[in-house]
């Protein structure tokens, strides 16, 4: 019998604002792997991530985390499960009324009793991992989009979660910074055994970090496979996306 997947989405449907966004989404994430979800803008990648942590509940279908059905859990029980999670939001989702340092320290201050010096040291350490230095006292409002995202990443990893969800971690970053973030994601997997789901449409980044890639289209996963399988595919829809070709079944605008 295969081991229970870390995360298991079964036939999830979701309608938002009158649009049927997820139409029977089925996807598993296994322990220790990095799964990359690709797909066009507005297709429902962020919505998928929100279902994985119970921020949205499916209209139909189930989401299991370590075999436990989270679709019917109450908020307080979900909080227990989320302790193992870190999530990077697409826009960083920093608390705008707190400084950068307070933002990153928040999970520590809320859930752990650490001496103040230790908190500061950890905050500095995690900010350095995303190449940010001496930003602790700045307010999020004055940071660039890319910097906010990196602060959000530092906050997501500050308590060394076992499972991290990244929503477009490299979008809006320059190529050198993107590489640094890719290396960070790969390192966390290799050194800490973290499992991750990464949403992206940055194909070089996807090929660098993925153990498996899943492509989302029209509310469903149309293909899951290794990066090599994606490179060798004959499917015109996938080739068009992977190689960024102009000609293909999908129109640039819908």
């Amino acid at each position, binding site marked *: 019998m295969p081991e229970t997947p870390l995360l298991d989405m079964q036939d999830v449907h979701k309608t938002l604002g009158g649009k049927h966004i997820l139409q029977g989404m089925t996807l598993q994430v296994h322990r220790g792997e990095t799964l990359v979800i690709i797909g066009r803008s507005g297709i429902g990648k962020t919505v998928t991530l929100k279902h994985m942590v119970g921020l949205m509940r499916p209209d139909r279908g189930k989401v299991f985390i370590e075999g436990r059905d989270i679709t019917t859990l109450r908020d307080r029980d979900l*909080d227990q499960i989320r302790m193992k999670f870190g999530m990077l939001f697409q826009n960083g989702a920093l608390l705008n009324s707190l400084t950068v340092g307070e933002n990153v320290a928040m999970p520590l201050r809320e859930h752990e009793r650490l001496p103040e010096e230790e908190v500061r040291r950890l905050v500095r350490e995690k900010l350095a991992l995303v190449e940010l230095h001496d930003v602790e006292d700045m307010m999020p409002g004055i940071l660039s989009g890319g910097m906010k995202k990196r602060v959000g990443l530092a906050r997501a990893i500050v308590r060394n979660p076992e499972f991290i969800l990244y929503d477009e971690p490299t979008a809006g970053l320059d190529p050198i910074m993107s590489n640094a973030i890719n290396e960070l994601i790969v390192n966390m997997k290799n050194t800490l055994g973290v499992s991750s789901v990464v949403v992206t449409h940055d194909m070089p980044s996807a090929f660098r970090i993925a153990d498996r890639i899943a492509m989302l289209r029209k509310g469903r996963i149309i293909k899951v496979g290794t990066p090599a399988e994606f490179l060798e595919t004959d499917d015109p829809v996938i080739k068009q996306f992977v190689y960024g070709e102009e000609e293909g079944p999908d129109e640039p605008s819908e």
Partner: protein
Amino acid sequence: MAKKAESPSDWVTDAFEGAGYTCSVFASTVLAFGGILNRRRELLYHVYAFGCGALPVTVLVAIFTGMVVTFQTGLALYRIGQASQVGVLVPLAMCREMGPVMTCNILAGLLGSRIAAEIGTMNVSEEIDALRVMSINPIDYLVMPRFLAMCIVCPMLTLYADFIGIIAGALVARTQLDVSTQAYLSNAREVLEFRDIYSGLLKALVFGALTAAVACSQGLRTEKGAEGVGVATMRTVVISSVLILVSDYILGWFCNVFLGVGA
């Protein structure tokens, strides 16, 4: 996203949904009171910010409320030759009714909209989702401290408004109605009972709790999009002002029957 015009039945469904949600937010908030010691920093901050933010307007409103009430009751009493008795009516009216209702109506506009806009903006910018993922319950972290702060600030400012309104009344009595300050104040001291004051403060406490529950729940269910926060803010002010008036009547009856606040 452009919305179709709402039909009356949509409106009713929506209103009931909103009311139900507000009640559930209120219930979770009450259940979260146990954690207040962990949030004392937030609580103190909100008490201070709300109190200082609302103080100037409260003073202004209290002055004019006291003046209007004194002037109009004075004129009415003048007709029956009893203008000197204005010191009996104004302090009672101020403490039981005008102080709590006028103050808390202004606070519903000022602080209710502020709370709804704050939480609504956080909701739209995914800050609340971020809190949830960090296993920080938004009721504990955002709602409960603001709720308790409103329950403290509303009676505090009301007490202050009562006092200022009575003083302003004394000035109008002297300059417009020819009632000496001494006569006015000795009337006031004679007629005013402790329960007139605390029944008014009890009202203010309930008004503050109602406003906070409406504001927080409207903020938490703000819809994404540019209009969302504006709609949540507007609804907060309208709903809490109406609720204040309706509950004022019910509370007046309650105070009369159960607390002996009467003739």
